[in-house]
């Protein structure tokens, strides 16, 4: 990244390696400090909200998909009223924190894949994402690189993620540019016959819910982290 401040680098840039803040970060701090001074919320409230937001993960959405695979009635609810369906997996979209107001728009839609249609989600204008049920966006989702290329060359970009779709599967890109937020419901993969809801939930990773991966038996994470065993393990 250059250090040219005339460009819109905002929240889409990688974290700078030097100690500098963007105009938007300065604005956020200024607004936050005014709110605290005015007593709208306390610094403690702000810390709690930040920690809350940072700890939301995609598990509730994964469970929503797993439940829908198993229960046709629940699937109908998911496809017609995803806000109501999210309550069943522990997310109150209208009051997600229980102590704050929703920070995002609340028209949640679930895009159902079929054996012949595969959905993938992007926000070309910024990085709109159903945060109350998926957590924060992965960094690549926010990059101009992903946003400008997935709409125009979706098959090539999906292939870069390791997802090569056969020609008989149509790709449908969803550009999330207004108040709707989207989750992809992939097709339940072969090899999961007789699985429980818990087992199915494990294979619906965040990338599957955005549409850049497909669920596979045995794959339960976007990233397999190496485990380095301690040379001197603690004994209790």
């Amino acid at each position, binding site marked *: 990244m250059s250090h040219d401040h005339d460009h819109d680098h905002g929240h889409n840039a990688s974290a700078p390696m030097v100690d500098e803040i963007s105009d938007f970060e300065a604005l956020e701090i200024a607004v936050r400090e005014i709110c605290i001074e005015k007593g709208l919320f306390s610094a403690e409230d702000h810390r709690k909200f930040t920690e809350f937001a940072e700890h939301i993960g995609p598990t509730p959405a994964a469970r929503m998909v797993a439940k829908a695979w198993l229960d046709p009635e629940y699937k109908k609810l998911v496809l017609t009223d995803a*806000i109501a369906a999210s309550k069943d997996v522990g997310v109150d*979209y*209208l*009051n997600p924190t229980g102590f704050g*107001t*929703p920070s995002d*728009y*609340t*028209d949640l*839609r679930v895009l159902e894949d079929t054996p012949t249609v595969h959905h993938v989600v992007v926000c*070309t*204008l910024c990085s709109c994402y159903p945060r109350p049920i998926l957590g924060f966006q992965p960094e690549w989702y926010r990059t101009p690189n992903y946003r400008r290329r997935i*709409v*125009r060359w*979706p*098959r090539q970009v999906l292939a870069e993620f390791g997802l090569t779709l056969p*020609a008989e599967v*149509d*790709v*449908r*890109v*969803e*550009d*999330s*540019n*207004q*108040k*709707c937020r989207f989750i992809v419901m992939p097709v339940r993969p072969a090899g999961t016959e007789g699985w429980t809801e818990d087992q199915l939930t494990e294979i619906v990773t965040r990338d599957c819910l955005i549409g850049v991966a497909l669920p596979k038996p045995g794959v339960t994470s976007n990233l397999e982290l190496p485990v380095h065993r301690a040379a001197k393990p603690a004994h209790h």
Partner: protein
Amino acid sequence: MSQHDRTHHARIATGKGDPQCFAGTAGGPSKFKVGDRVRIKDMPDIFYTRCQVYTRGAVGEVAVVTHESPAPEDEAWGHVDKSEWFYIVRFKQTDLWPEYPAAFAKDTLQTEFSERWLEAV
């Protein structure tokens, strides 16, 4: 105190959600229905829009009538007294991008517009 009401939006959306808080404010039923063919108007946009340039002039089909809301071109300036219907429109990728491979002619892209951007084909 400031002249500007900065809590207006929070007050109308709390407990209902946004865009749900604007239900019934578009002044009537939606002009288009699912399956209608529409063209995206190439209107000037000054300062702010959420209507992507890559869709201007393209013809697609209404896939979902989503909700009522002020258009972002108004809402960005705090004007929330007039709402419009919103539509998710489905385009054939080959209608959007000249180089899109004919081998994948059934690939599609969906994105959303407020009613002002659509005209019947």
